């Protein structure tokens, strides 16, 4: 998969370490519940990321074994999809829409403001662990951009000032 210009290159497969016991239990819960579904891998990966906030590289062998897939297959799927992440996110995930309808009303300026204000780029987490910044290409809010998704909550007409206000209100 081709990554965008501002993003890091694909990371190589990481060596396997033991998965924390609690994480292991969550992964096994997801595979046990969903393994019978036809094409179960994406639902399983969603369930793992929902439960843990990310898909630990050390969970890959376990998922692979439980679903009867190779590690390379599971890793290949995780790395193909922009939504799945392999490192824990900050307390809040901020997704800024970079797509055209939001560009037409100031998304580029908002993106710059967010980077400056947080001191991080896309796919990075602030040093205090509060925020992870992610790009997103359309949130279906194109009549009222610039659009921002904070965790699972959508915000419309977000300018720099509104962005700061939103952030300050978050724990």
């Amino acid at each position, binding site marked *: 998969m081709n990554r965008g210009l501002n993003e890091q290159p694909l990371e190589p497969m990481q060596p396997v370490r033991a998965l924390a016991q609690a994480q292991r239990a969550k992964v096994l819960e997801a595979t046990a519940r969903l393994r019978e579904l*036809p094409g179960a891998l994406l639902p399983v990966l969603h369930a793992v990321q929902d439960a843990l906030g990310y898909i630990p590289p050390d969970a890959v062998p376990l998922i692979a074994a439980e679903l009867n897939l190779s590690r390379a297959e599971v890793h290949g799927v995780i790395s193909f999809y922009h939504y799945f992440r392999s490192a824990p996110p900050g307390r809040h995930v901020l997704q800024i829409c970079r797509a055209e309808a939001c560009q037409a009303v100031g998304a580029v300026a908002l993106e710059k403001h967010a980077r400056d204000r947080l001191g991080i780029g896309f796919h990075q987490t602030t040093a205090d662990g509060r925020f992870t910044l992610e790009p997103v290409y359309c949130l279906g809010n194109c*009549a009222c951009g610039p659009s921002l998704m904070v965790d699972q909550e959508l915000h419309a007409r977000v300018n720099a000032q509104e962005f700061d206000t939103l952030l300050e209100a978050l724990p």
Partner: protein
Amino acid sequence: MNLRLFLSRDATALALGAEDTARAVFTMAKRRRATVELVRTGSRGLFWLEPLLEVQTEQGRIAYGPVFPEDVPGLFKAGLAHGGQHPLLLGPTDQIPYLKKQERLTFARVGVTDPLSLDDYLAHEGYRGLHKALEMSPADIVRSVTDSGLRGRGGAAFPAGIKWKTVLDTAAPRKYVVCNADEGDSGTFSDRMLMEGDPFLLIEGMTIAGLAAGADRGYIYLRCEYPHAHRTLTEAIATAYARGYLGKDLLGSRRNFDLEVRLGAGAYICGEETSLLESLEGRRGQVRFRPPLPAVKGLFGMPTVINNVITLASVPVILDRGAEFYRDYGMGRSRGTLPFQLAGNIRHGGLVERAFGLTLRELLYDYGGGSLSGRPIRAVQVGGPLGAYVPASRFDTPLDYEAFAGIGAMLGHGGVVAFDNTVDMAAQARFAMEFCAHESCGKCTPCRIGSTRGVEVIDRLLAGHEPDRQEALLRDLCETLTHGSLCALGGLTPAPVLSALNHFPEDFRSPSRVKAYGP
């Protein structure tokens, strides 16, 4: 006092503060000891008026908007219950010109009913199409869809009936119906509005597709950027099962139809139908070679009807009112209606369902009211990120598949994104290449490598290094992409790039760039 109020729970309405408005309404009702029933609906699609608060009166529904919490006490004081005078009063909702001039066939209930109430759905002509379909042979259902002239609303505009017939005529132990709810195109939100605002309509359309094609299992592939739609669909599907509208022996017909929602994971390419099928099967979303067509060998190798949300949601009205009723709307070979979506730098953004044939100018100015910034609209991108940029000189083109093809553009999913005269068209062209690089599935070289080259060439062109040579290179590269790509991501990325270059050449050459945007 007994009040029946309506307020949207559509994602955009919520993003604009509908939940705060709801809370303010309840607080106020309590203070005034009024009994309030607040029905949470989909959105009427007049987003500059959201949160739109409607009240049931003897004269029908009266609208106020946009209503923020601080407006609520004043509304109660003004006699909301009787549609009392107030600066935010808009009058009878269906007389608001933006709505009144629409032809809402597919979106007839959206914004009107409670999306999660099956009883509301039934009371507003819901499931009449399915009841008709249950009395017809599969071939007759397919004929009806073919005769209606319905073409795929997801982008390619392929006749739906022909696709269904192929699936019907292909013998197989199992068949599937897949709904493409990936709605990745910027500037589009009609799928989202429909799923949030009238989920039973999509469920009904898919069930009819199942009867027509002989499929007893359906999947909705929904993009994960739509958590609200996900919750609504999940709940509606559970209700449909509980009431016998899905599952075994549905409505006592001895026919079965099972339906499930599956989430995508942020890959634009998974909107391409074969990539979507790969993803549903649990793999990387790489585009498949064709043939075989998905209608012959689709999901898990079985014949599969795969259609866009709006295509499937247009089917119930066709079955209910008849193919001719639907076909009588539209122009040329574009029959029926399309829910256009007005987005970007536009004053009155929202959803406009009209028969094909009105002009882009009517949409932008009569409905849209011009740009949000008040500056002239300089360019409009129609049909998503792979659609061409249309300059003002072409705004009189009728919204019709063939007329748009005639000017080198496409209607696609009906998204219309307006830009005012501060737009830098070279930056838009660069973004199109960048987006292609970001979303490429990696299967073919021109798309995978060429798009990254494209960004570099545009950068050199803009820096003024041998601009004639760079422009020639860029055009060559576009030529290669157009002819050497397996799917439309690589194949159509040249459309936004070249339309920007051809219609707005002044934005690409440094002397004028320096003048317009500074050194």
